[in-house]
């Protein structure tokens, strides 16, 4: 069993790498301009170019993939010749700073032709000093410097080039400078080092928002799962025990009716009936900070929708499986050798009949986590599915990749659980 689990984990890693490459490739090759998607149609060409450069989108795709996977800070640190560190400020902002030889944290900005260092003290306060000693000479006679700016990017500044720009700085007013930032490298530690980067859409670290979404989805999926699955299994078994009986007909037809209605229709009907007409439960989820347990009544309709959609499906699978088992020869044998009805059902029939539904149920955990976009959209529920959809629509690659990775983990994890459950249901199954 231990070997089996190790093998499964290896399989998980390979799947994750493959999926991440595929997601990157698809996002890359699909049409769409990420700057315009995010900033809106009325961006100026300069804004667009600057956005893409500052997000590091002007780098080749393999480089961006590697940065996403393993981080860009080592390369940036080599360029700057200093250690780069990531800190979280008291207010909760993630910031990158360079540590100079004296051990103090620094960032830089240009003020005219002057390089100004922002030095961070132990207590979090900052002071500025002129830091022109750091300019390095280019072969062409101009100067350059690789440092960190206040946007968590490694930046290459130049001066003494042909390009002249006007920049405004405090205390000095307008000054003409000969250069400016020419290359950006957004700093991140990389997915395998626990930092999936910053969402291009929101500018927030993906890790900060995706775990909130994951929690919301877990709550919704968890509640729906604990209600649906026992109920569906129980009702399926009841229906399957007496094929053709009245209770079988009622359960089968009822289950079918709800599972064939698409979830958005079910959702909207439920909103119309319970929220608009009867006014007993809210028809949309409005989250404050403590969501989702702040207002549990807001979860009623989404859970009910999921229950109705899922129930019929799992119920019918369980029923079919149960019917098949009840017809099999060994059940008849069990009856004939005089076992009690209870014992035949629970000891012999149910255990075998559960194999198929368990597979389906485990596959559905994944669907409940990331695939219930429609339910989330109808109720305005801020779940993982909607997050993924928004990321995909906006080609927000860091967010999309991270979401995809979470779903791969859930998929492979639930499959592992299903495999383990099989061994309990059927002792003949052994994994070595």
């Amino acid at each position, binding site marked *: 069993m231990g070997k089996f689990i190790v093998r499964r984990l290896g399989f998980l890693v390979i799947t994750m790498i493959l999926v991440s490459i595929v997601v990157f490739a698809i996002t890359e090759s699909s049409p769409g301009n990420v700057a315009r998607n995010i900033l809106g149609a009325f961006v100026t060409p300069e804004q667009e170019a600057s956005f893409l450069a500052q997000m590091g989108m002007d780098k080749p795709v393999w480089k961006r993939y590697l940065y996403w996977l393993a981080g860009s800070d080592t390369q940036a640190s080599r360029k700057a010749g200093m250690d780069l560190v990531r800190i979280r400020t008291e207010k909760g902002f993630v910031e990158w700073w360079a540590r100079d030889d004296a051990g103090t944290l620094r960032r830089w900005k240009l003020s005219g032709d002057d390089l100004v260092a922002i030095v961070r003290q132990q207590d979090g306060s900052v002071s500025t000093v002129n830091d022109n000693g750091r300019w390095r000479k280019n072969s062409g006679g101009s100067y350059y410097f690789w440092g960190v700016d206040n946007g968590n990017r490694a930046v290459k500044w130049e001066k003494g080039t042909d390009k002249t720009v006007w920049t405004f700085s405090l205390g000095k007013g307008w000054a003409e400078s000969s250069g400016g930032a020419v290359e950006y490298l957004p700093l991140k530690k990389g997915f395998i080092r626990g930092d999936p980067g910053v969402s291009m859409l929101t500018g927030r670290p993906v890790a900060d*928002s995706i775990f909130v979404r994951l929690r919301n989805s877990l709550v919704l999926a968890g509640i729906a799962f604990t209600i649906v699955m026992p109920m569906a299994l129980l009702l399926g078994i009841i229906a399957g025990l007496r094929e053709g009986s009245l209770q079988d007909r009622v359960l089968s037809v009822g289950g079918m009716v709800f599972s064939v209605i698409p979830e958005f229709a079910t959702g909207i009907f439920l909103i119309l009936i319970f929220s608009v007409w009867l006014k007993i439960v*809210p028809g949309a989820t409005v989250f404050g900070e403590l969501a989702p347990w702040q207002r549990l009544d807001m979860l009623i309709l989404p859970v009910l929708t999921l229950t109705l959609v899922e129930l019929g499906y799992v119920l019918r699978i369980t029923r079919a499986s149960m019917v098949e088992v009840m017809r099999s020869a060994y059940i008849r044998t069990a009856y004939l050798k005089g076992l009690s009805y209870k014992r035949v059902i629970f000891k012999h029939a149910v255990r075998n009949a559960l194999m198929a539904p368990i597979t389906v149920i485990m596959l559905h955990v994944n669907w409940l986590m990331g695939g219930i976009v429609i339910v989330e959209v109808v109720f305005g529920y801020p779940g993982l599915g909607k997050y993924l959809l928004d990321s995909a629509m906006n080609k927000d690659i860091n967010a999309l990749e991270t979401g995809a990775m979470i779903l791969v983990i859930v998929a492979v994890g639930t499959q592992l659980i299903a495999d383990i459950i099989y061994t309990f249901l059927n002792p003949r199954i052994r994994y070595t």
Partner: protein
Amino acid sequence: MNSKEKLHPILIEMKKDLKNGAVSRREFLRYASLLGASAATVSTLGGITFPESSVAATVKRGGVLKVSQQIQKIDHPARYTWIMPSNAMRQVLEYMTFTDENNITRPYLCESWSASDDLKTWTFNVRKNVTFNNGDTLTADDCIFTIGQWLDKEVKSSLLGLVGSYLDPAGIEKTGEYQFKLHLKRPEIAVPEHFFMYMAQVVNHRTFDGDIKKAPHGTGPFTLDTYKEGEICILKARKDYWQKGNDGKPLPYIDEIRFIDMGGDLAPQIAALKAGDIDLIDSSDNVGPRIMKAVKNDDHIEVISVTTATTRVLRMRVDIKPWDDNRVRMALKLCQNREKILALAYQGEGTEGEDVHVYPNHPEYCDIPVPKYQPEKAKQLLKEAGYPEGIDVNLAVASEWSDVVRYAEVLKQDAAPAGFRINIQTMPSSQYWEKWTEVDLGITPWTHRPLGTMVLNLAYTSDDDGKPVPWNETRWVDEEFNELLAKASGIYDVKERRKVFCELEKIMQERGPIGIAYWMNLWLCPNKKIKNLLAHPNKYLFLKDIFLDG
């Protein structure tokens, strides 16, 4: 009248016009305020008063306002591309001027201003005794710094294209602790209006460092408590705001505002509005009658309507065949059955357009007849242009804008008799926005702008080299039109200006690159417990003097 106040010569001219009825009261107010006359002067001069919003005598303090809004990424206010984030931050940061719902621009953080007779030198006086929420006092330095940020190429503000076209960094002069002068490259009347563009929020020059979230120091009535993109934004009232309420104590009346991100889909937001879980939907980047239709029969919700210059523009690329031929353009324009389009696409909730990008509430609007639906004439024109058998054309529209799709469908049907075989190409709006300036025939949404000159300068002119400006989606460059427009942008006398606009509009209708079938009304649909809410044609939210009752 304040005898010390020097009146702009145009105002003295206009006063006569006001008397003999050549200028409406509203235009007089607008121009008087634009040119910096104080309310007292206007009332003495014109015998009229500024319309003041009537506030109930007794206001209630306290309470939390809940608004649904997509909490977007923000860093530099000058870089806003959507209105929504400006609406949240509008309660924290303020503007130098204020353009009200009637397109009248009034003093705000700048308490007065004046323009030289040639309109190339503008003097702005900054209001005294205004403090930022971190304790700093607002001075001319803050305004100069803010304008400097727009003009800084590194900041990449879209205001650079607008303000930068007439103002160089060197043209800003500090003339006192509370006064600064702008020396323009060319005359411009809309300077105070540009200071109210949604990305023109004044930042604190002492603390601002490129990311407003890290030092959210503004002069506004609220302070930023929490800003979580994609989730929630919480604002808390400050105690020492510079404006006082009706009860003599500082504004705002409410204690807290929560902007809650419910995603972009309207259905759950409408459901939450109806259930009272939110009080208002910020639909500033989302026009259309859907919210209004859904809530108009609801007893808890008020519907406030505004007529705006928001519209859908049927635009033809004049550098691509067949639209380079004005006869073909004219033929398609004649195929618009405007009454039917307005009724079917926007349920009659607007006014009919005249293929001219100036709407009746623009001050310089010149009355021009609405063209009739003439398929026969269109057919004739197409024949003359060399398409006797008719012509196949592709029309690009985005599927999310249902009224645009219906507009296209009606047009397709009504243009068939004239010989146009229109193939409607629907696509997601994100895809449309990616190539909105590139498609040869498409329908583009345009938002409200308070002045006719503002839109015409944005979309129907060329730059100094004669190349179309960035938002000139049709590439239409007409020399006569360009010259007239430049002339109009420097004329203050409304009568004179309108004369030029009559010509401009005629040119646009006769050989222009666009069809405009309807102007859209917009609505603000708050919960009735919100009192004193202002409906602005740009859907800007002003929450400093609202209060909650009931």
